[in-house]
């Protein structure tokens, strides 16, 4: 991957043209842009229902410079399977290019929750596809509801912080590990802390024969309640606090992509966002929940380290 030149890559036309309707500071279009930077082959894209699908296809315009299909919310995995199979059936006939790659995008709602079955089916069947979850940890298209990806204690509109309840009570599921449990050739987790990490991982995912899954943590300024300008900084805090470890699993071998030299307490990550503001009220700081978040982060990190060690044995 050392051959990738970021300066050269930024000159490339992205898959989305200017004028799409996504919010300033939204991590999704950043993720899409970076994801495609290192890919040379033509790509066909499926989008699950969600912010990105709605905002990029407002008729009579489409922001997509590549073929794009949206069917519904829960079936991006199945839709991309059908397209990839059609290409297999038709590619020998000279009608279409041979080297097309197939990428599905789903938010965390469309991937962790309602689309998990279709994703699992696609991974199990071994289609030559890449599924990218742009994970902003909740249902943003409908107004910041909690999902299976929403972290514990975050205040979402269906798990609001109230007089009695301190935001979401449950921990999120670990979808990256669920994907890895399908024994597929490539799984990765990343965020927008460093463009090269997204670029190289998606490139590897797309170039890997068979199914690949990439989970990209992307901020939603409206839900996370951050300044749109702070997108990269918040992602950096997610990584530096070990809240969101960045790693990849190629053919079962785990590899950490970045290890903070000195990790920061998760409190710093939580404090950077308004969705945790209820934990930091003056005179009523929820030390118990902040400590609990730190314990979860530490446990998750230890688990990952063990996986890395045992896979490299």
């Amino acid at each position, binding site marked *: 991957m050392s051959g990738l030149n970021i300066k050269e890559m930024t000159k490339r036309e992205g898959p989305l043209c200017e004028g799409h309707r996504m919010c300033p500071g939204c991590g999704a279009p950043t993720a899409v842009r970076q994801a495609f930077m290192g890919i040379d082959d033509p790509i*066909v894209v499926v989008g699950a229902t969600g912010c990105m699908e709605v905002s990029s296809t407002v008729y009579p315009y489409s922001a997509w410079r590549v*073929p794009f*299909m949206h069917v519904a919310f829960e*079936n991006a995995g199945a839709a991309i399977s059908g397209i990839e199979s059609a290409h297999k059936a038709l590619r020998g006939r000279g009608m279409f290019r041979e080297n097309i790659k197939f990428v599905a995008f789903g938010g965390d709602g469309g991937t962790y929750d309602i689309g998990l079955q279709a994703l699992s089916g696609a991974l199990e069947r071994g289609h030559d596809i890449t599924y990218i979850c742009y994970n902003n940890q909740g249902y943003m298209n409908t107004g910041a509801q909690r999902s299976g990806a929403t972290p514990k204690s975050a205040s979402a509109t269906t798990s609001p912080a109230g007089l009695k309840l301190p935001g979401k009570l449950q921990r999120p599921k670990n979808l990256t590990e669920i994907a890895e449990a399908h024994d597929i050739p490539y799984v990765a987790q990343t965020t927008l802390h460093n463009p090269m990490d997204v670029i190289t991982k998606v490139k590897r995912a797309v170039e890997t024969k068979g199914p690949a899954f990439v989970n990209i943590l992307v901020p939603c300024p409206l839900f996370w309640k951050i300044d749109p300008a702070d997108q990269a900084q918040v992602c950096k805090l997610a990584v530096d606090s070990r809240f969101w470890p960045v790693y990849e699993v190629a053919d079962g071998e785990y590899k950490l992509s970045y290890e903070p030299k000195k990790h920061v307490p998760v409190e710093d990550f939580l404090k950077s966002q308004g969705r945790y503001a209820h934990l930091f009220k003056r005179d009523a700081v929820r030390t118990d929940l902040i400590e609990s978040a730190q314990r979860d982060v530490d446990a998750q990190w230890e688990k990952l380290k063990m996986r890395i060690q045992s896979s490299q044995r």
Partner: protein
Amino acid sequence: MTSGNLAFAEAMRQINPDVVAAYPITPSTEIPMKFAEFVADGRVDTEFIAVESEHSAITACVGASVSGARVMTASSANGVALMHEIFPIAAAFRAPIVFGLVNRSLGAPVNIHCDHSDSMPERDSGWIQIYCEDAQEVYDTVILSVRLAEHPDVRTPVFICQDGFITSHCYEPVEFLSDEAARGFAGTYERAYPLLDVDNPVSYGSFVMSEDYFEIKRNQIEGLNNVPRVYGETMRELAALTGREYGAVERYMTDDADYVVVVMSSATGVAKDVVDSLRREGVRAGCLRVRVFRPFPADEVREALEGKLGVAVLDRSASPGGVAPLAAEVKSALYDCETRVPVKDYIFGLGGRDFFPSDARRVFDDLSSGNFEPGVRYIGLRDKCAAAEECVI
């Protein structure tokens, strides 16, 4: 000898579609099972996707069809219901999927036998719906439907319905075309705006506000409006090969009939037998079978029924709290008649309840007795049932 399911699968083998995505459910399972054998034996070169749900089956079909592939699948009952969300999307994408819908009751309670409660809720999905009487007709209709669905003036997916177990599993003689003739008739599929054309990228499934949604939906309806013409042309072309021609409706001794039973699918055979018996007894009985339900052949129905002394419409599904689907269509078609045609609606055969010649005879007796009181009557319902006695025949 073959069955409706196997006749469907045989037509699929001959057509050799590019992609089949399917999920098992009784009684349609045999179709993908048999087809998987063809794949395993190398008798077709289809990409067969054994998906993890019916929802994914129809979604994969949509993706493949939009990509430019010729696509087929099959399902029944709850499988069809699970696909419900995607049917209007397939129609709006003008994805000419050929779908074997093997009719089975919708749970609850769970029941695997025939009625039309699975296909009728999909009548407004924008798909063509054709109901077959027997296995021969199933076979002929698959060959026909590939061309009908893909026609540039139609570009609309099609449900080929057959009665679960009654047609799908009973063996009867079926005449097949040669592989060459079937493939020659089907031709090849050329999609407009295929998704795989990366040099001319298009977006499918856009977000459309009130300014344009209405116009787009109206344009889509035009595909169904063109079906009668294209159906007629294509059917005549196929009939030249097979010697068998099916209209949108089948008129069995209706021309001079006083009393006509309107029915669909396999129960038609019973009704026709009883018409024969009654004719021998001097009763001018007739039977009208509705084969194409979407688009509904209202003109042909009106032409067949205008001036009759009595018409009975037999529905194999109910619309709880409303008029059953076939009765609603027939009555609506008769609204423009100069003189009112007396129509009585009946519900029969739910959950595979047998429809006997004695049942059909009681319906004709009902008509000739002049009983046209409003309200539905239930055929062959047992006692210990909530229905009032006068509603049961």
